[in-house]
């Protein structure tokens, strides 16, 4: 199978007042078409940086980072599910979800029909004309997910999308997210701090080293799909999270020692 996302010896350096700072160093990664890949690593190791490069919001300073374009040139390459506070407060739920389609010049009728479908899928039908200020955090996060999915990108990028939510809302949205993904089987790159979440969602979990970030280990998650939250109670799940934590522990220690 061809790799959808390829990073080879990727490097990102930032110019700061103290001089050059290497955020990402010699980073190699391949993500297969249709794979759900989770990225974990200590704080400050360059996860967001890598994701921003993929999203076209930043550039690598060395090596190669690319997304292999699909057959349809009109299908957008990669869209980000931003955290809930990134939905536009000045647009209604419907207009937020239709945003990408509007930017691509679709007619009002066409984009609203698609957006409505996605609003239904994330269970916000009743709130379609509401403004974000009138929604809860979990509902706003659903809007953000629908906004990216409605645009039908080839790759979905998520940077701790559920990080700001309470544990219960988070669990519910994890399951909903998996259901939505099962329908389309898009390539997903998912950054998270939660080991449980990474193992529950991902086909593979990539652990990064502390700053400067490189690839440390890759853990294959062979849990059967479709999954529901029940899988978290199985011994296989515990073994996997244990393995991820094993790989992560020293890096987190190193990162904390460095920052202290």
């Amino acid at each position: 199978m061809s790799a959808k996302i390829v990073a080879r010896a990727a490097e990102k350096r930032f110019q700061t007042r103290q001089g050059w700072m290497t955020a990402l160093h010699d980073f190699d990664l391949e993500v297969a078409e249709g794979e759900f890949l989770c990225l974990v690593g200590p704080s400050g190791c360059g996860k967001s940086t890598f994701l921003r490069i993929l999203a076209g919001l930043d550039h690598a300073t060395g090596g190669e980072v690319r997304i292999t374009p699909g057959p349809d040139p009109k299908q957008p390459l990669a869209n980000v599910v931003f955290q809930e506070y990134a939905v536009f407060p000045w647009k209604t739920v419907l207009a937020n979800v239709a945003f990408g389609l509007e930017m691509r010049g679709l007619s009002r009728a066409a984009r609203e029909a698609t957006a409505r479908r996605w609003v239904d899928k994330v269970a916000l039908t009743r709130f379609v004309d509401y403004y974000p200020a009138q929604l809860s955090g979990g509902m706003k996060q659903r809007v953000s997910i629908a906004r990216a999915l409605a645009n039908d990108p080839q790759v979905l990028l998520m940077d701790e999308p559920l990080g700001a939510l309470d544990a219960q809302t988070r669990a519910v949205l994890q399951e909903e997210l998996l259901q939505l993904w099962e329908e389309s089987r898009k390539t997903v790159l998912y950054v998270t701090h939660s080991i449980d979440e990474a193992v529950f969602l991902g086909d593979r979990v990539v652990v990064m080293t502390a700053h400067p970030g490189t690839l440390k280990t890759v853990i294959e998650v062979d849990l059967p799909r479709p999954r529901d939250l029940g899988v978290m109670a199985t011994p296989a799940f515990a073994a996997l999270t244990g393995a991820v934590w094993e790989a992560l522990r020293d890096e987190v220690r190193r990162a904390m020692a460095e920052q202290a």
Partner: protein
Amino acid sequence: MSVRRPERPARPQAEEAAGPRAKAGVAAWAIPLGVIALTLAAGFGLELWQGGWWALLAIVFVCVVLLAQELEPRLPLRYRGAYQRVLALGFPLALLLVWEWLAGSGVLNARWFPPPSQIAVALWELTVSYDRFNRSSLLGRPWLLPSMFAESGWAGVQALVRESHVWATLSRVLGGFVIGAVPGVLVGMVMGLNRTVRMMLDTTMSAIYVLPKIAIFPILMLVFPNPFGEGPKIAVVAISAFFLVAISTMAGVQGIDKVYLEAGRNFGANRAQMFRHVILPGALPIVFSGLRLALGTALIVIVAVEFVRADRGVGFMIFYYWQVLVTPRMYAALAVVMALGVALTALLQYVERRAMPWRRGSDGHG
């Protein structure tokens, strides 16, 4: 914009309140009432009003506040709205009544502080009468419009409009405001979006911003061919509005959360779309607070200008009736300025609500 205070904690259950708290409850009522009675008795009985009326009023005010605070949590929820309106409107009404009474009883000098009833009468007289000496009227005598139009057509209508003080001030404020605010928004947007332009203009703008704009009025009178015409007056309002609006628009554009810009970019917005869908709405709340400030300033500036150099306008009225010592009319003109301010602010708030429907119902922050 009203600030919502946190709700007081709910009263404890009735059983609990039966003991010492009940006594405290009675005291909370009885003490302020007693103090008010004592104060009034002292005021009338011992003739203390003359020297210490302001101290006695302050005591009564504090007691009324204490009583109202005792009363509020006991009111059923559905009366709370009415209660708030009673407080908001009752206070100014009480103020007017006290003023009326102080002026009437000679405690206040009625020559400088004429009672509100006299001011109301003066306002009515100004409205219906025509000032032959200044050849002007307050509103332009709109009831004469049909006959003037029949007599001399549009020229007649124009003559009526020209004699109106309110119209003179209103046209200067609105004209100057629009002429200043529209380019102010545009320049502010450019300054917010373009770093180079911002670095070049920011210091200069901030320096001019702190200059009281009325200070440049003499220059403007030199610049315009007719120094006593409308030109310099409208220009000084426009300049005041321009700098305020430009600087707050710039701040509004710069204050837009980066995450919205990135979302726009990630979903493929081009420059025009970015402006229309992200930057404009994102900056709008701060732009409007700049417009509100600019409107208030416009009113201040125009009244000051009309003090100095005008034969029409509410500022002129205030100054003129001060010079001829007809204080009730002077206060009436002040009331007109207040009414103008309230009306213009309400108009701007209406536009603001229409322009930013997403802020309706939410608390107005963010």
